[in-house]
C-alpha cells in the first residue's frame, strides 16, 4: 500500500523533506516509524513522539490502510 508520511521540525530536517509517499506493508504507525528510522536515521524514539493519522491524533498501533497520511510529531514547543 502507499502511505504519505509528513515530517515536522527536527524530523523534517533529518528527512530532508516535509513529506514523502512510501510503498510500505507496515501494519501500524509503530512499524512505519521503524522503517522511517532505518531510512532517515531519526534519533527521536517513538515514545517521545505523538502520531497523527489522516489529520488527527492516533495510537501508534492503529491499523494502517492504503492511502493513509501519517505524521510523526516531535515534542511540541509552541507558546
Amino acid at each position, binding site marked *: 500500500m502507499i502511505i504519505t508520511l*509528513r515530517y*515536522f*521540525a*527536527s524530523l*523534517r*530536517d533529518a528527512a530532508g523533506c516535509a513529506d514523502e509517499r512510501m510503498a510500505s506493508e507496515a501494519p501500524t504507525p509503530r512499524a512505519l516509524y521503524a522503517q522511517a528510522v532505518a531510512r532517515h536515521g531519526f534519533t*527521536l524514539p517513538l515514545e*517521545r513522539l*505523538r502520531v*497523527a493519522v489522516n*489529520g*488527527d*491524533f492516533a495510537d501508534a498501533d492503529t491499523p494502517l490502510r492504503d492511502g493513509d497520511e501519517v*505524521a510523526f*510529531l*516531535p*515534542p*511540541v*514547543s*509552541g*507558546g
Partner: protein
Amino acid sequence: MFALSESTIDTPRLGRGLESPRTGAVVIFEGRVRDHHQGRVVVGLAYEAYAELALAEGSRITAEARERFDIEQVACVHRVGQLAIGEVAVWVGVTAAHRDAAFAACRYVIDEVKARVPIWKHERYADGNAQWQHP
C-alpha cells in the same frame, strides 16, 4: 476561536473583538519572543505548525475552556513563520462577567496550547547555531 497567523498578530484588533456589555473582566496573555534561552543569546526564531491539526487541537482547547469556566469569549492566535525579538508569538484573550473565571480560563488555554498543539519553535542564536526545541 483558535487561529494561526503568518504575519504580525494584530493585538489591538483582537482586543476590540472582545468588547461586550456583558463583560466585567478581560484577561489577555501575550507570549513574546525573548532574547535569551537557557543562557544563550537568541537573535530570532521561527515557528512551524502542522496547520490542520494545530487548528483542530487549538479549537478543542478553546471549546474546553468554555465548558470548564464561566466565561463569555475566548480567542487564541499563534504565530507561524519568522519572528523577531519582542514580537508576539501567541495571544490569548478571555472575557467573563467576573475576573476569577477569566484568569483561570486564560491560564488553561495557554498551558494547554503549549502542551498539546503541534507547533514547534526553532531558535537562532548569536553564536550562529540554531536548534529546534523539543522539550
